[in-house]
C-alpha cells in the first residue's frame, strides 16, 4: 500500500522536531542522569517566543529560531544553576532529582499560563498561516517541511562538529563519560554541564517554535509532548545522541504513519488513539530492549534469534 505524500510529509516534520527534542533530553540525562520532566515546557517557551516576536515585532517565524534557542536555553540554564546543580553537588539521588524536575515543570508551566493570560491569549497559538507552499522542481511542498528539515540538519551537524571537532566539545563528551577524571585534568565540569543544559534548552526552544505550524498550541503542549520525547529518547538508548536522533524518527513515523493505517479499513479506529502509539512503543521498548537501540548488543540478540530458529 502506498503512503499518501501528505502523511509522509507530516511524519517527517513531526519526526524532525521530535529528534531535536530527544537530543536535548538525552543531553540533560547524560550530564546529571536526571529524567528531566521540565524538558517539554522548554518547547512551550519556544512556542510563546515565536508568538511574541511575531505578534509584537512582526518578525516572520522563520527568523525567530535564534531567539527561541537563546530564551529556552537560558531558562534551561537557570533551572540547572538554581535547582539541579545544587542538588547534584549534595549528591542527591535520582528520585530527588526527578521530583525536583517535576516541581520545575509545574513552576514553568504555571508561568507560561500566566504569561499567556497576560497577553490576553484565550485562543490557541497557531502559525499555520505562515506555512506557505514552496515549489521545488515541480513539487509543491509546505515551507515548514523545508524549514524544519534544514534546521534539524543544521543543528545536528553543528552539534556533531561541536562535540567532535572542538576542544570544549571533546571536554563535554569526556565530562559526560567520567566527570571525576575530567576534573582532574583541569576541566571545569560544572561549566561544561551548564553549556550542555543551555544547548539542550536551545534545541527544545527551536523545536517548539515550529510546533504551532501544525498544531494549535497551548501552555500545556510541551507537557503533553513529554512522554513522546521520553519514548524517542529511551528508544535511542538514553545514552547516545545518535540514538536519540534515530529514536526521534522512529517514534515520529510510528505515530503519524501508525494512526493513518489504524484509522483506515479494516480497523477504522478513531484518530484519538494517536497519543497511545508512542506510549505503546515506549512500553514495548522497555520490555524488549530496555537499553534502547544503541545500548542493545545486536550480535548477541542475533545469536539468540538464530539459536531460537535452530
Amino acid at each position, binding site marked *: 500500500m502506498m503512503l499518501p505524500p501528505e502523511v509522509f510529509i507530516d511524519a517527517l516534520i513531526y519526526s524532525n522536531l521530535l529528534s531535536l527534542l530527544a537530543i536535548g533530553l538525552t543531553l540533560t540525562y547524560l550530564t546529571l542522569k536526571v529524567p528531566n520532566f521540565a524538558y517539554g515546557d522548554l518547547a512551550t517557551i519556544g512556542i510563546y517566543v515565536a508568538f511574541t516576536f511575531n505578534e509584537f515585532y512582526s518578525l516572520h517565524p522563520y527568523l525567530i529560531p535564534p531567539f527561541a534557542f537563546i530564551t529556552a536555553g537560558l531558562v534551561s540554564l537557570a533551572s540547572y544553576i538554581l535547582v539541579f546543580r545544587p542538588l547534584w553537588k549534595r549528591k542527591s539521588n535520582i528520585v530527588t532529582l526527578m521530583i525536583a524536575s517535576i516541581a520545575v515543570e509545574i513552576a514553568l508551566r504555571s508561568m507560561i499560563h500566566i504569561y499567556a493570560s497576560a497577553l490576553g491569549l484565550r485562543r490557541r497559538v497557531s502559525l499555520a498561516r505562515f506555512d506557505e507552499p514552496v515549489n521545488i522542481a515541480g513539487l509543491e511542498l509546505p515551507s515548514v517541511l523545508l524549514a524544519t528539515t534544514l534546521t534539524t540538519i543544521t543543528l545536528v551537524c553543528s552539534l556533531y562538529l561541536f562535540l567532535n571537532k572542538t576542544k570544549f566539545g571533546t571536554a563535554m563528551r569526556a565530562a559526560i*563519560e567520567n566527570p571525576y577524571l575530567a576534573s582532574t585534568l583541569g*576541566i571545569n565540569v560544572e561549566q561544561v554541564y551548564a553549556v550542555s543544559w543551555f544547548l539542550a534548552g536551545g534545541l527544545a526552544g527551536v523545536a517548539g517554535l515550529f510546533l504551532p505550524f501544525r498544531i494549535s498550541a497551548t501552555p500545556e503542549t510541551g507537557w503533553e509532548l513529554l512522554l513522546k520525547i521520553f519514548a524517542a529518547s529511551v528508544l535511542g538508548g538514553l545514552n547516545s545522541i545518535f540514538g536519540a536522533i534515530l529514536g526521534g524518527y522512529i517514534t515520529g513515523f510510528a505515530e503519524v504513519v501508525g494512526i493513518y493505517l489504524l484509522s483506515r479499513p479494516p480497523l477504522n479506529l478513531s484518530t484519538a488513539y494517536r497519543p497511545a502509539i508512542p506510549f505503546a512503543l515506549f512500553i514495548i521498548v522497555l520490555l524488549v530492549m530496555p537499553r534502547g537501540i544503541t545500548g542493545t548488543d545486536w550480535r548477541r540478540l542475533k545469536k539468540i534469534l538464530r539459536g531460537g530458529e535452530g
Partner: protein
Amino acid sequence: MALLEVRNLQAGYGKLQVLFDVSLSLNKGEIHCVVGPNGSGKSTLLKAIFGLANIYEGKVLLNGRDITRLKPHEKARMGMAYLPQLDNVFSRLTVRENLLLAGYTLDHTQYRERLEEVLDFLPQVRAMMNRKVLTLSGGERQMVAMAMAILRKPDIIMLDEPTAALAPKIARNILNKIVELRDRFKIGVLLVEQNAKVALEISDNAVLLVAGKEVYKGPASDLLSNKELAKMYLGVR
C-alpha cells in the same frame, strides 16, 4: 621550601573519617611512596590532597601556598596531576582526544610542544594515537594515562597504584618510567603502590599508613631495611 606539604591531615568521606593526623613533605625531583596494608587510607590520602575527599582538619600546601580548599580543576591548573587507580582514561574517546584533554589548560603551541616531548618519552603511545581507548590493553591504557598526566609538565604527579592488575614485565616497565620521569623532568612523584618492596626500592622517601595513621615516615631505604615493619605491614620478607 617543600614542593608539597601535607600538615596534620584529617580526611575521609562524609562522616567516615579515614585519615588521622597524616603529614608528609615532598620535594622536587623526589619519589615519595605511600605504602600500607589494604584499607589503610593510601588512596584516600591522594584523593584528599587533590580535593576529591573531604578534609576535616589540616592543610595542604603547594609551593608554600595553601590549596586545602581548592577544587580539583583549580589544583590541576596549578601544576598538580593525579592519576586515579581505575578509570584513568576516557575509554570512549581516542588516544589523541585523551591527550588533547590532558592539555586542556594549555594553548595550542604549548600543547604541540608538550605532546612531542611526551611522545618522545613514551614512544609506544605514538602508534596508538587514532585508536579508541576501548581497544587498548591494560598496559597500553596505563601508558596513555601516564602520558596524559605528564603532558601538562606538572610540578607534582600523584599516581594511585599505576601497576595494579598488570603483568610483572609491564609493571616493571611502568615503574622504570616513573623513575625516568623523576630524573628527566625533575617532577615530584607521590606514589601509592601495592607492591611495597618494588615501590620502596625506587622511592626516596616513604610513609607507612596503618588504619589511617602514620606508623613510619622517613627514607624509603630505612623502611625497607626495617624487617619488623616490613614483615608486619608490607609482606616484605
